[in-house]
């Protein structure tokens, strides 16, 4: 396991890798992440020029395209030395675990990838493991359940952190989710190319969500969130999906 923020001094300032989906579809998630960080005395910069980390192309096998996007993202993030916070487990996993392999044949970029990976954190991981915060002072209402998105869960070991953060949100009732660690069927282009299988996996996830009796499903990855929310809406369900950052931002 990689070392957490090496200085032992808690960082007072971070860069936000906002991700393409949050930027264009769910800006409120990015803004909520900023609010939570700032509330805990961490100032946030959002490096200009960031676009997409390249994960869709990487997962589809188009590694030349993925490489170009990885190089671009590394250039953007390397301009400054602050830690990088990503409100998305799968994009964080991409930066942390795949950039170096993808760029192994280009020493200059492989080095950049290694350096950037050593200071990149998923949002809840940064709060709990780096800042040492579990109580964000958030309050909420209603019944809340947690879906453990796969890349965060298995790629980064993110599970205990979001659960600990949710545990300290006042006013909510937490409901267990059956098969919380089973994939919702998103998988990027998988949801489109293998739409029928993905749809069947989604149906199983939605059944479990309905069974949990929660009115809000919390995720740490907006891509899974978009998938689950889209499925709930298609079913006419009143259950809503929210990113963890949004839950933590509300008081």
């Amino acid at each position, binding site marked *: 396991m990689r070392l957490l923020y090496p200085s032992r001094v808690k960082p007072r300032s971070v860069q936000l890798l906002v991700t*393409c989906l949050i*930027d*264009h579809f*769910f*800006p*409120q998630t*990015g*803004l909520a992440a*900023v*609010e939570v960080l700032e509330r805990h005395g961490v100032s946030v910069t*959002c490096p*200009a*020029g*960031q*676009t*997409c980390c*390249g994960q*869709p192309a*990487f*997962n*589809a*096998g*188009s*590694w030349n*395209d*993925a490489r*170009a996007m990885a*190089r*671009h993202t590394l250039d953007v993030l390397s301009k400054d030395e602050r830690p990088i916070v990503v409100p998305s487990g799968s994009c964080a996993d991409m930066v942390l675990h795949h950039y170096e392999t993808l760029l192994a044949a280009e020493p200059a970029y492989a080095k950049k990838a290694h350096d950037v990976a050593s200071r990149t954190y998923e949002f809840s991981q940064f709060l709990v493991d780096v800042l040492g915060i579990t109580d964000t002072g958030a309050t909420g209402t209603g019944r809340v359940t947690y879906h453990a998105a*796969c*890349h965060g869960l*298995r790629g980064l070991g993110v599970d205990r952190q979001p659960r600990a953060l949710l545990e300290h949100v006042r006013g909510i009732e937490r409901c267990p989710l059956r098969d919380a660690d*089973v*994939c919702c069927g*998103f*998988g990027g282009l*998988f949801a*489109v*190319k293998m*739409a*029928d*299988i*993905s*749809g069947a*996996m*989604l149906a*199983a996830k939605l059944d479990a969500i309905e069974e949990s009796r929660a009115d*809000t499903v919390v995720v740490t990855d*907006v891509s899974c969130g*978009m*998938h689950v*929310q889209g*499925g709930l*809406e*298609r079913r006419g369900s009143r259950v*809503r*999906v*929210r990113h963890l950052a*949004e839950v933590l931002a*509300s008081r």
Partner: protein
Amino acid sequence: MTSPLPFHRRVEQALGNQQLRGAIGRATARKVEGRLAALAGLADADRLRDEGRRIRANALGRLDEQLTRFVEQVERHGGTAVWAPDADHAVRYLVDLARARGVKSIVKSKSMVTEEIELNRAIEAAGLRVVETDLGEYVIQLDHDHPSHIVAPIIHKTRQDIAATFKREVGATDADVADIPSMTAFARRKLRQDFLTAGMGVSGVNFGIAETGTLCICTNEGNGRLTTTVPRIHVAFMGIERILPTLADLGIMLQLLARSSTGQKLTAYTNLLTGPRRPGLDAESDGPDELHVVLVDNGRSHVLGSELAEILYCIRCGACLNACPVYRQIGGHAYGSVYPGPVGAVFTPAIGGLADWSDLPHASSLCGACREVCPVRIDIPRMLLALRARAATEGHGPWWARVGLRAYRFTAVRPTLFRLAGRLTARATSLVARDGRISKLPGPLAGWTRYREFPAMAPRTFQEQWKGRRQESGSGISSAGL
């Protein structure tokens, strides 16, 4: 190994079969629970898995040396070992041997490698009789079906399906199929005669031990023991990767195999066979007079040393199938390959090439559940990604994905263009969105809206709001739901 139907048609068939999905869902859930309970009973399961991985890496890293030693030992104990570079060589060896020895009838114990080389078809084409003796495989044979799981071949069938097969194919009465004990007793009566009259027994091999030339064969029904000891000739088919250097290594691997597979501590029968029956002064009373081991390569040696080499560590426990949410929805037949599920999605194209199997590496959401449960920690998602990259380089896959990703990349490395393209797309989608969602997308994206709504793009991106926020400094943030 190719299937006549394209992948998406097989998936459609599987998803439309509620009975199949119910049977597979229940059976895999039971196996997942069984595995967890069995591993919880081990003092240090994680260390054992690390050790298992080390043993497999060591065996495969020196495979030539291990195989040479294994062959020497098999021969030293009076057996015959032959090398089969491909399926044709392997099946021809058996057919020629059966003819030379005047064998008319063959009993078989469950074996995936003989499924891979389509041994039964070759035996029957040669005018010989072959009977599967594992209960599941017996039902498969009667049904002219294929196994849909590497450990539990009839995981896709219900008890009622099997009762119907017994009545239709082998004249079972209502009393014979009244309950599961009656059905197994019925099959046992039928098979007993075949064991006693067969001239040859065919088995697979779970592990071949290099230091002793021993074959380890694990079964739960005892049919394996009858197959390997009653007929006069025993022919074992072994994938060349199934080698372990020492008996001590076997001790570790056996602890992992049944626990990961069926949740047992050990399979009910774990047979260790070294050479044929010994004649002379220290004569053994049972066992075959002749023992033949057919070492099947069939594409495996090309995988060695490649980025997919790790898939040869697989000990065929089937844990990745049970854990895979894709397998749980579609079952084994939809994969169209002898080895289904995550391991099959790597192994099949690795040995068979991507020309026929380029869909399989894409039949995964890359959730990583397979890697999490693998007893020897095979990184299946990594190899699925490598195969996807290979498929893309070889030009497999839909054109729209290639063109779409190329265009996306073109804009993504040009931030100003990326923003502009984003704005234009947002404007276009706002025309078709209702209440912030889109219910029907065009072209290939229609796959998404077949099962889910698609969100409209935000009227103002994060970056735009961020800029505005900096200017107003400290303005409130609205945080509506996703």
